[in-house]
Structures are given as C-alpha cells and as structure tokens.
C-alpha cells in the first residue's frame, strides 16, 4: 500500500526526522492561508501517487500568498499522469546546501532489508545508479543484528563529509530502518534529504510503501487500506469485497482461480487477438458468495462486453463455481455473454448446472478463449 507524501512525512516526523513546515490544502483559499502563515516563499506539491510529479508540473514554487493561491487553483483538479490532484502539500521553501538520498527497502534476491544512501540526492535513485553508481552505498542488514547508528556511521565512511554531518546522516538512516521494521515498510525513502545552511537535515520529499501482508499488525495503516490513492474506483470496490482485482483497458472480462492462471488467461486472450478488460483471481477453494460478487463486479464494468471464466478445480470445486456464476448472473442488472472453462473437482456437476442455464462450457482454456472472441 502506497502512502501520500504528507502521510509519509508525518510518520518520519513522529520518529524524530525533521520535515519542512507545511500543511495540506484542499482548495486555493486554504493554500493562500497556509502560505501567508508560513510568511516566506512556499512549494506547492500535488499529492498524487506517481513518480515524476515534478517533471510533470505537479510541484511549483510561489513567492507569496497571492501567487500560492493562483498556482493552487491551477493544480487542484488537474491530472498528473492520469491521477487527479485532490490536495496539495504547501511547505516552506528550503534553502539547500546539499541534497542527499536515503532509503530502506527489501532486496527480494538477498532476502534482506537493504539500506541505500547517496550524496547525489534530488534525482531518481535509478538515475543515480546509471549515471553515478559510485555515489550509492548499500548495506544489507542481518535481521539478527539489526542496524544501529554505529553501523550507519561505518556504512557512510566512504563519503567525504565531516564527522558531525556524517553522524546526522547516519541517525536519519538508522531511523529509517527502525521505521521499516516497526511498520513493515517495503520502502521508506527520503529524496532529497536536504542539508540547510544551518547544517540541519530535513526530509524534503518522502515515499512510503507498506507491506500489504502486514496491515493486520499496523493499526495506523489498516484504517487507510480501503481508500488507496493508487486504486481505480473499481479496484477500490473490489478491495472492499476482498477480491484480487486489477483494471485493464480491454473489453473481455477475465475471472479465474489462482493468480498465475488468471495472468496466463489474460496473456492467451491477447495472443488470440482479444483485449482483456480486467484481472480477477477468486483464489483457492472459493465459496459461492465470492464468485457471485466477482461475476457481478466484472459484469458491471461498462467497457466489458463478454466474460471468460477459467477454472481449474483442485481445492476449488467446479459445482460451487457454477452456482456462484448463476447467482452472480441472476443478480446482475446487465447480462453479458459468458464462456466458462471448467476442469477438475466436481467438473460434471458444474457443467450440468451451467448447461441448464444455457451457458457454454469448455474443458480446456484455449477452446474457451477462442470461443469468447467469437461472442
């Protein structure tokens, strides 16, 4: 789950990392008021969950409150890379001596948390990695040992900076590691971490991605988990209903059991020249209710014209799936053609139920996919 910049910064602040003075604004009047309160030039930052906001014009500087109001009215309601801007973060404009980079993320291959630090902050870490790989330090943390300030200081020793600056930088990255552990973060990043003329380190921008699997033990995240900025409206609805759903651009609805099988079904439809309209995995051992809800959800997507359901029964029972499909169809206000592939546990009963309702079934997914393209 991704967090907005203002949410990520709030978590940093509560853990002792300095952030710029600033507040959230939902309209231009609020932005003007905040800028007046700050009383010096401000930065207006669109709160959207896409990278490259700055390059797309989503971050602007205003020299006074009047200008802040004008810029805010431009930004609020505009769209950045397909994401609507609903709010801004209005912050003091920092004086910058140096821009650093710090993050903690999970290295899937090393199976460890990895701490990254750089003295070339302010641009994407991928960009630094390409243009100036030596400017990035990495430290893989042994989970039994952890990552203390002393570990951080020795990690940063290759960077030429005075001891005082190094210790401040080390403190920030050791706090990031603590946040990553305490809150099950997949990524916590400060970029840039700005050094001001007074020598203070301030997190000018921040990103936070929480591990979806750990929301149960992070109550401060859980309440947010049903209204995620990165979800489309239908994805948000699916999440509420406990369905693994992703929107795609096409007109063929796709439902199946098992993430890999659903992805393979989508790929097959595309290979045959069709355009899949969604991903929906009903999971293993699905009951009637979840299948019904899935069918209703996909049926109700206006762009979807036909639906392909691909079930390979193991713990999932074909007769249960068939019942769920029938109930979903009955409760859908708009009915669209369906082709169903059924194979495995209780296949015969499932086929019988669907045939009785006039729905065609196929024993293999390629036949079903070819058939749905003709509907």
């Amino acid at each position, binding site marked *: 789950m991704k967090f907005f910049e203002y949410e990520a910064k709030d978590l940093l602040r509560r853990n002792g990392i300095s952030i710029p003075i600033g507040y959230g604004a939902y309209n231009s009047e609020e932005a003007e008021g905040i800028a007046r309160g700050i009383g010096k030039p401000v930065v207006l930052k669109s709160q959207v969950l896409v990278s490259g906001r700055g390059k797309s014009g989503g971050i602007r500087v205003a020299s006074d409150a009047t200008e802040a109001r004008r810029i805010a009215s431009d930004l609020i309601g505009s769209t950045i890379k397909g994401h609507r801007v609903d709010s801004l973060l209005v912050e003091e404009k920092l004086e910058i001596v140096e821009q650093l980079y710090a993050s903690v993320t*999970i290295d*899937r*291959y090393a*199976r*460890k*948390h990895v701490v990254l630090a750089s003295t070339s902050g302010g641009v994407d870490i*991928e960009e630094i990695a390409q243009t100036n790989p030596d400017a990035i330090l990495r430290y893989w943390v*042994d*989970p*039994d040992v952890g990552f203390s300030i002393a570990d951080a200081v020795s990690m940063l020793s290759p960077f030429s900076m005075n001891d005082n600056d190094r210790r401040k930088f080390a403190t920030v990255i050791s706090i990031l590691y603590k946040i990553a*552990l305490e809150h*099950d973060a*997949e990524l916590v990043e400060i970029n840039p971490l700005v050094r001001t003329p007074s020598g203070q380190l301030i997190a000018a921008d921040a990103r936070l991605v929480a*591990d*979806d*699997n*750990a929301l*149960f*033990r992070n109550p401060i995240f859980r309440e947010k988990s049903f209204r995620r900025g*990165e979800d489309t409206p239908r994805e948000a609805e699916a999440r509420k209903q406990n369905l*693994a759903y*992703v929107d*795609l651009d096409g007109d063929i609805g796709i439902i*199946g*059991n*098992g*993430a*890999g*099988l*659903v*992805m*393979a079904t*989508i*790929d*097959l439809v*595309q*290979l045959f020249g069709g355009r*899949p309209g969604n*991903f929906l*995995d009903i999971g*293993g*051992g699905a009951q009637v209710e979840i299948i019904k809800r899935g069918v209703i959800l996909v049926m109700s997507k206006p762009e979807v014209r036909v639906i392909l359901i691909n079930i*390979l*029964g*193991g*713990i*999932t029972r074909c007769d249960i799936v068939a019942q769920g499909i029938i109930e979903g169809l009955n409760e859908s206000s708009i009915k669209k053609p369906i082709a169903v592939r059924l*194979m*495995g*546990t209780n296949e015969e009963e499932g086929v019988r139920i669907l045939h009785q309702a006039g729905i065609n079934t196929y024993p*293999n*997914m*390629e036949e079903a996919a070819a058939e749905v393209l003709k509907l």
Partner: protein
Amino acid sequence: MTSIINKDPKVVVQGITGREGTLHTALMLRYGTRIVAGVTPGKGGQQVQNVPVYNRVFEAVNNHNADTSIIFVPAPFTRDAVLNAIDAGIKTVVVITEGIPQKDTIEFIAKANKNGDVTIVGPNTPGFISPPHSVKVGIMPAHVFKPGIVGIASRSGTLTYEIAWHVTNAGLGQSMCVGIGGDPIVGLGFTQLLEMFKDDEATKGVVLIGEIGGNAEELAAGYIKQTNYPKPVVAYIAGRLAPPEKRMGHAGAIVMGNVGTAKSKIDTFTAAGVPVAAKPSDIAKLLNL
C-alpha cells in the same frame, strides 16, 4: 549435491487440526505420503485421520523422526511455526500459508540459512509432488500428475496444474514438481532446483514457470547459460499484459520500475537459448523429449 527435497520424507503437519490442515492431511495420506504426526499447540493428544497430534514440533521429531514439515497455520502465526520447526531439527519446511509479512519471512529464512542445511519451500506455495515416489507434500490435485521424466519448478499454483496436465497428456509425466511460491521473498529458488534436476537421473527435461516481479527468472537463465545446462529447459512467463506497479494476485507478481517485466524475463531466457512458450499447451512440444 544430493536431492534438496527428500523423496521419502517423514512428514509432520503443522496446523493439522484446522480445516485446510485436516483436508490435505487426508489427501496426502491417500496419495501415499508418510505423515507421521501433526502439531497444533493446545491440541496435543488428539488424532486427525489416525495421525497423532502434538503440542510441539520437537515431540513429533523425537517420537517419529519427522524430517519434513508442511505448514497450514494462519499468516500471523507462521513465523513462530517455522522457527519451531527449525529448532526441532526439521530439514525441509514447506510453507503453504499465503499472506505472511515479508519481515517474518526474512527472519525465518535467515534462521534456516544459519542452521546450514534447512530448506524452506515457499511461502505461498502449493508444495511439492514426486509422482514416481508417490510423495506429495502439498495441496495440488493429484490427478493431473503422472510418474514421468519432466521436472517442473513454478512460482504459481493452478497454472502449474494446468501445465502439468499438458505434460501428462503429452505422455511425458513428471519426475518432480515444486512450487517455489508466489511471495516476493521465498526460500528455495529456481537455480537450486535446476541444480537438483541436473543431478537427478529420472529427470530428462525441465519446465520453469515464472511470472512478472523480481529477477528469479533472469538469474535462472544466467545459470543455464553459464553451466551450459545439459538438459532441455522450457520456460513459460505469465503476466505479459500486467500494468506497472499493480500487484497481480500474488504478492510477488508486481513490476517495479524496469524490474520484473515479462519482456525482460522472456528476452533473458531467449538469449540463454531457453525457448519460452507463448501458451501453456506449447510447452510439452518445445521440450522435444
């Protein structure tokens, strides 16, 4: 290297008294797996499918020489269950549970690595099956598998059954099929399984079933190229149409920036001389066995 995965395991089922644990204990027993004990804290002394239940894993190890564990406990408790299994001396831990926090997986994999010879399969895996030995430590439907000559390693569940079914219908059958798990962080990987299949005489060809996310497929391709791998390998990659930064069902199936795209995996396999099947039904043909 000897086989990483025991072909004659003495299995303890952790979470045996739960709905899934009970169901799959019956199915594994029916397939021929030697299930010697179950564990559910607080339920010691009961029996499930005539299998004795204990409170702690070490009792199952002491009394029955269990060497392999299969875990069905809910995600919040899986970390402790795996650590208990490792402490009790279990050598292969198959973690069926889906939805485990990555931090917990990092911890128990670190522990397994420190203990040297403990293999973690998964998490979020259907387990493994060896049809020639009538051994199934997992949840896969047995009827799609037949004893044979193809080794399968996969990040998926039902897609594995789909492909195994095609391999069975082509008359090839499977020597061993292992789910490595759909999570971002898993224990046993493609490369270790390729090594195992290389040394396994029963295995004449290998199928790798990958998907978007991470770089496990790229590493496997690198290994195949470097070692001039002696057996035919065919790959399949799911998720060609996945949009970036969207999780496609599996926690690990997500493209981040340029990392984890289907294109990168397909290109790397192709460059390593590994044919990548466009659809599941092409795989058996491409193996050319």
